[in-house]
């Protein structure tokens, strides 16, 4: 039986609570009495037989013919799939996408389909390495397609493989992968880890170029996405949905969406997803061991320890068929796993930024990514209204000291050193510098041939945080490198007490506080 999420009120019986901070975690015992702590629901039950569930979904899709009836000899079939930014942390092999692709290919082989291409829908994310691709699709698929060049990363700067499908009624360009657009059938395999994923965002964003993405990936749209975890109230999703409906007219998309439960921490780190007061003696001992180990381990080893973690997610659902019909069912499952009811807003929102976000898998969490994770993803983990009131404060935990990965994030370095030095206002930096970074030939070269995120990507990270920056008055990082925090335009504090002291300038000495206890993922349903 899995218990629903709930809101704890810190009292004198509450033990210290875990707060994630980069490559480590803190046991915070400084939460003032009465602090609300939002706990995610426990893992909901997984489907008993994954292969059976996949077969069932492919043979009985929603608002579409069964997959075998859509496959015929001589057709052009393209299978696109989410890249390594999902799920987080990476799933223990076999990845669910690989298992689904195997089923799809088995049906395609039976139907005599010869022309099959597999495209990782990484949009402006970095190209994945062969090993990363193999982890997602599985060894069998990898061996059959990769050497021939039929399994590859999408290249959003390859003018020859892009096609313009038109514009929406709001004048938004739709430019996506030509191969996908010209296929007789485009099968998209997604992992719907959180509520913002999937739907028309899969093809419309995952396989799109900068020309198309710039319409919704900008400061103005993001400020009006409240939140981007709630597609019905997200300007970004509205744009993606407008595009998706036009894509639908010219491309036959067979969407396969999967949902996962909250089993993110494998043993022996499973204590991190238990409620602290329920820790057994063994959990306490493991926690102490891990904490002391982290304290002596060099940065590199800590990085390895965390990034080698593979989650043992259970599959909670797989749905296939027409995009919107599928996505509605998918969201039901996601909400069942993540939604927690929270009564009213508070003055201060506390969040621990963990070691991992979508853009630093096998890489490092630089200050810009940490901001995106805290003020972007975590801040937006709400439905209804933000957890913190307008003009409130956000307190984040992260050391901001991991530096930049030159291979993966070259444009981030320049963004940090040059752009943020001048302004930290998302609208201003976008207006002034986005074009320059997006069209810089060197960044494009690195994006296409190396493993670098696109030149414009750091801007997107900053836009992701735009809604939070617009909404709250102060952002304070606990335990952060002061210079890094200052460069980002934020303040740093050593402890929670200091951070609350800083916030007291505007919020008084006894503000109401809410701490979002994630990971595992949660979505606060603020009434």
């Amino acid at each position, binding site marked *: 039986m899995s218990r629903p999420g709930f809101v704890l009120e810190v009292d004198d019986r509450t033990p210290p609570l875990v707060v994630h901070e980069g490559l480590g975690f803190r046991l915070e015992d400084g939460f003032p009495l009465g602090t609300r702590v939002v706990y995610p629901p426990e893992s909901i039950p997984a489907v008993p037989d994954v292969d059976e569930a996949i077969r069932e979904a492919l043979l009985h899709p929603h608002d579409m013919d069964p997959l075998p009836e859509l496959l015929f000899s001589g057709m052009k079939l393209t299978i696109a799939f989410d890249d390594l930014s999902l799920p987080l942390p990476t799933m223990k092999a076999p990845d669910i996408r690989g298992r689904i692709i195997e089923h799809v290919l088995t049906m395609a082989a039976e139907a005599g389909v010869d022309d099959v291409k597999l495209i990782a829908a990484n949009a402006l994310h970095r190209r994945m390495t062969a090993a990363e691709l193999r982890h997602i699709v599985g060894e069998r698929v990898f061996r059959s397609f990769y050497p021939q060049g039929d399994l590859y990363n999408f290249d959003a700067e390859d003018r020859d493989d892009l096609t313009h499908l038109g514009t929406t009624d709001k004048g938004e360009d739709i430019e996506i992968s030509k191969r996908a657009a010209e296929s007789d059938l485009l099968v998209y395999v997604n992992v719907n880890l959180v509520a913002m994923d999937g739907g028309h965002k899969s093809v419309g964003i995952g396989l799109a170029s900068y020309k198309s993405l710039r319409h919704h990936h900008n400061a103005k749209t993001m400020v009006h996405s409240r939140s981007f975890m709630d597609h019905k109230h997200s300007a970004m999703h509205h744009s993606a949905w407008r595009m998706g409906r036009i894509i639908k007219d010219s491309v036959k998309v067979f969407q396969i969406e999967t949902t996962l439960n909250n089993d993110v921490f494998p043993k022996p780190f499973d204590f991190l997803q238990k409620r602290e*007061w329920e820790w057994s003696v063994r959990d*306490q001992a493991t926690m102490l061991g891990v904490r002391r180990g982290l304290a002596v381990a060099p940065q590199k080893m800590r990085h390895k320890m965390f990034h080698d973690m593979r989650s043992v997610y259970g599959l909670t659902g797989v749905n296939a068929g027409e995009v919107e019909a599928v996505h509605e069912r998918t969201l039901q499952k996601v909400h069942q796993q993540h939604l927690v009811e929270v009564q009213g807003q508070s003055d201060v929102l506390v969040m621990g930024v963990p070691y991992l976000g979508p853009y630093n898998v096998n890489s490092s969490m630089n200050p810009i990514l940490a901001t995106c994770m805290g003020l972007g993803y975590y801040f937006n983990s709400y439905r209804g209204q933000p957890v913190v009131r307008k003009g409130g404060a956000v307190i984040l935990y992260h050391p901001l000291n991991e530096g930049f990965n030159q291979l993966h994030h070259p444009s981030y370095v320049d963004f940090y050193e040059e752009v943020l030095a001048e302004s930290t206002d998302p609208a201003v930096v976008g207006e002034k510098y986005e074009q320059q970074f997006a069209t810089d030939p060197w960044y494009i070269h690195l994006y296409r041939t190396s493993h670098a995120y696109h030149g414009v990507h750091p801007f997107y990270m900053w836009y992701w945080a735009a809604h939070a920056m617009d909404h709250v008055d102060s952002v304070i990082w606990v335990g952060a490198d002061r210079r890094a925090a200052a460069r980002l335009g934020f303040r740093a504090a050593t402890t929670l007490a200091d951070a609350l002291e800083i916030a007291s300038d505007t919020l008084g000495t006894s503000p109401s506080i809410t701490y979002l206890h994630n990971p595992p993922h949660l979505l606060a349903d603020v009434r």
Partner: protein
Amino acid sequence: MSFLKESVDDVRQVARGWRWGRRAQVPKSAEPWVLPSRSTVFRTEWSRRKPAMAAREVAQKAGLEPLFRSQVRTRVEGLDVLARIDGPVIFVANHASHLDTPLILLSLPDEWRRRTAVAAAADYFFDTWWRAVGSSLLFNTFPIDRRGGTMAATPGEVLADGWSLVIYPEGTRSTDGWMGKFRMGAAYLAKEYGVPVVPVAHRGTFAAMPRGQGWPSPGRRQLTIRFGEPLVAGPEESVRDFAPRIKSAVAALLDEDRSTWWEARRRVAAGSTPDPTGPEVAPWRRVWEQSESPVADAPARKLLAWRRSAS
């Protein structure tokens, strides 16, 4: 050096936060979400076999008894009733403190004590293996489910094996020292297995070591305990009728302990035995009254010459 200091700080924080050596606590707002306790049934047959009995004898005689006597004074009355009956019996007593069990056990004659087992709350004394082993080794406890659950078979088996039982029908320690509501379990067992019930009343344990206290108060407080006439359920008597009779017997014994046998008898006859649940007055007054140790007309202390007191 700082690593060592941080490690010590970490361990200290965890020891304090998770209350090492004490019972874990659940934050109030999380209480509705506590999972029902695991129904792990710790087997306790071993604790009623020879090796465990021998170990218990040593533990009780060499450890528990001297310690107990060093902390409290006791006055035991009414043991003569045991001479007239053969076991097994069910000792039914009021429950006000963790001192009740050692008081009853150590008041019994050795041959009775060795064959007496104590019914203990499964969710309290049997929630971890070490607590289960410790309490069954020292006090010969076995688990019962005080929420009236599934373990009801166990006390019957113990009785059937010829062991006497100690049962506290209130199911939990009193919060103010006064007697609470009696449940039917003891009456049911007595009726079902045809064994007599020996009512037991004791006073002073609440004053000496109330709920929440881990050790008796200093000053060797006085405890009194009184065993009453065995009660046997009549052939036509239902459990529902028998249970109140047991409660009245305990109440009368308490009255007797407070006054004299004759006065108590007369009050029983007149139906005016004082209510053992205490007067309906402000909570503090109830606690106040019970926090005073009973006065026993014990013989004056010997060796007056050695007393340090100036009086």
